[in-house]
């Protein structure tokens, strides 16, 4: 993560981080995988350039900032300089699905994940020796500290309106954490999936 922020600033594509989010419409098979891909793409930058420019037009209300290049100025690292592509064993897919509470074990989902990892592999080439990893591009800014005075709260009504299910002034959630089905059960459930 830290290594990535480093490259992000160095390679002048820090901006792309902000507009990556919408790229989830790359994958449109179901809502679950869409959520998942957001996190993948947030880490990896993005897959294609055209996609970036495309999105910028859609989401930017500002005219183009001349300081920001129209297209990425970096060259992709040739494949032979990269480590061999990562294999994603079924167990790992299983673990990731559990951690993120999403299903993505479709061919398409896996391909996207592999692509994202391949993109991130380029970071191995960056020489970071002697460079302290950064936490954030705002590191040199002072963290704003707020005085300890009550400014908000008392908006239960507004918040509860957002919930599908409420009882009195409580939000209602399913009981405890619903245990995920066991792997075998899930395989049965996903029998018709492409994996």
């Amino acid at each position: 993560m830290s290594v990535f922020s480093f490259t992000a600033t160095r390679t002048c594509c820090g901006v792309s981080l902000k507009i990556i989010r919408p790229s989830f419409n790359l994958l449109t098979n179901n809502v679950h995988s869409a959520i998942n891909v957001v996190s993948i793409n947030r880490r990896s930058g993005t897959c294609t350039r055209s996609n970036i420019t495309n999105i910028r037009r859609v989401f930017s209300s500002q005219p183009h900032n001349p300081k920001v290049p129209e297209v990425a100025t970096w060259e992709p690292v040739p494949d032979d300089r990269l480590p061999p592509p990562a294999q994603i064993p079924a167990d790992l897919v299983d673990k990731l699905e559990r951690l993120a509470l999403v299903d993505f074990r479709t061919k398409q989902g896996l391909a996207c994940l592999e692509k994202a990892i391949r993109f991130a592999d380029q970071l191995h080439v960056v020489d970071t020796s002697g460079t302290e990893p950064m936490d954030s591009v705002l590191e040199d800014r002072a963290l704003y500290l707020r005085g300890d005075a009550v400014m908000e709260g008392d908006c239960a009504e507004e918040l509860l309106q957002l919930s599908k299910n409420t009882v009195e002034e409580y939000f209602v959630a399913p009981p405890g954490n619903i245990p995920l089905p066991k792997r075998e059960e899930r395989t049965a459930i996903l029998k018709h999936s492409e994996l």
Partner: protein
Amino acid sequence: MAASSIAASELLHKMNKQISILYPKASCVIRRIGTTSSRCHSQPQHRAKSAPQQLVGVVGLEIHAQINSNTKLFSGSPVRFSSPPNSLVSFFDGSLPGTLPVLNRRCVEAAVMTGLALNCTINRKSVFDRKHYFYADLPAGYQITQQRRPIAIDGILTYSLLGGKRSEVIRKTVNIKQIQLEQDSGKSLHDDVRSQTLIDLNRAGVGLMELVMEPDMSCGEEAAAAVRELQLILQALGTCQGNMSEGQLRVDANVSVHRPGEPLGIRTEVKNINSIRFLARAIDYEIQRQIGVLQRGGTVQNETRAYDSKSGETIPMRDKEGLQDYRFMPEPNLPPLIVYEDNASLPTGFDACQAVVVQKIREGLPELPSVKRDRLVQTYGILPEHSFTLVNEDGLVDYFEAVLKATKKEPRKVIGWVTNELLGHLKQQDMSVSQSPVSAPALAELLDLQETGHISSSVAKQVFQEMWRSSGKTAQQIIQEQDLGLVSDTAQLHSICQKVVDSHPDEVRAFRNGNKKVLNKLMGLVQRETKGRTDPVLVRTILQEKTL
């Protein structure tokens, strides 16, 4: 509770028996800390059965202290206990999209102050991380915490406990690994009947200091004493109210057993402990349970267990699926937190009201409990045990000192009144010092009356009880109303003594024959006659005269 202690003692008994068969001379007191150290550290565990050395407990603690602040850690909504559900929630606390954390300066200062009081190194730069897990009372799906670089590290807590044969004060220390700032979660109310969970986010986002204590303790009593000392420190600082039953101070214990000198055993984490008394019991139960498991040839599972205060047992909580992966990552919305050593180290042009300056906080540290105890012992010449009693009870030191200011009685004589009479009465009725019906000046007046010889010490205790019952009456009033003052009329005293001497010729004869102890009996009779309203020294002299 009873059942478990019986089970534990049964276990102890069995083990003692076994050990005494194998090692007839070995004394086995499992709950004691093993002082005989590594005599056979080369023996691995498979010799557990022959137990060449006793298994001892190892205890580390993770403590969550709610920061005493007006507003939450990252939002301006109020912090309050028992308010209507979801009434103290901002959009940020409900993790609505687009909201951002804004750090509360008070929380940073509280953590720095606590760190200083616990002799920590304050990190000039600390950072925030996201810790991910899914639970309905954590709406964001992650908690903002300080995993990689917390605000304070490497501290030490000195605590004391009464122990040994003469119940002397034993001083111990526990290392504090770190203090980190983090968000509290909301609260879940489980409705099993309708199979749903009700979520109240009032607590979500309240600032916490998580204190991690190294496994330097060995039994429940030590852990309890350490937590009590920490509680007193936090309360003295005002950084946490420290009420365990309201969840302002929450303690999880990491417990394992091993033989001294050998690597630490597999640990369990005991949760759900909501009082200091239960903490000690839960830990001791868990140590015994683990020893039992090992003695039977089993292995301790690395698991989370909950303490059930009704049965006094720890029971396994639902298992986590394998190792938790919290997917820690730097919190992207908060740049590093910088604190400054002194005003001189502030960058030029830096807004002073934005800065957290360690030097300033250090100067503002109040008197800590340990310092207060030492001062009490040195200033007033009281016993260390008494200083513990005084400091342990909220407001009692102030009461004691207020009494001293108003009386001529020596501190060493006053202390008994405060720690026995007053505290005894308070405890009996479950009252706090501030609720005492007898005020400090009122007690001082009573003690002065005794000191100047107006009343005897036994009458003084009687008057105190009367003052307690009918609050508002002064000692003087009660003494007059009930005619409790010392019999000062010497003629009257003489005649009473004469009457006693005359009616007990046998005792008088015995005394004359050299049995000096008999005089005490005669004195007692005079006391009874006057309802304790006599000066014992005077009575003794008169009786001696009359029996000669």
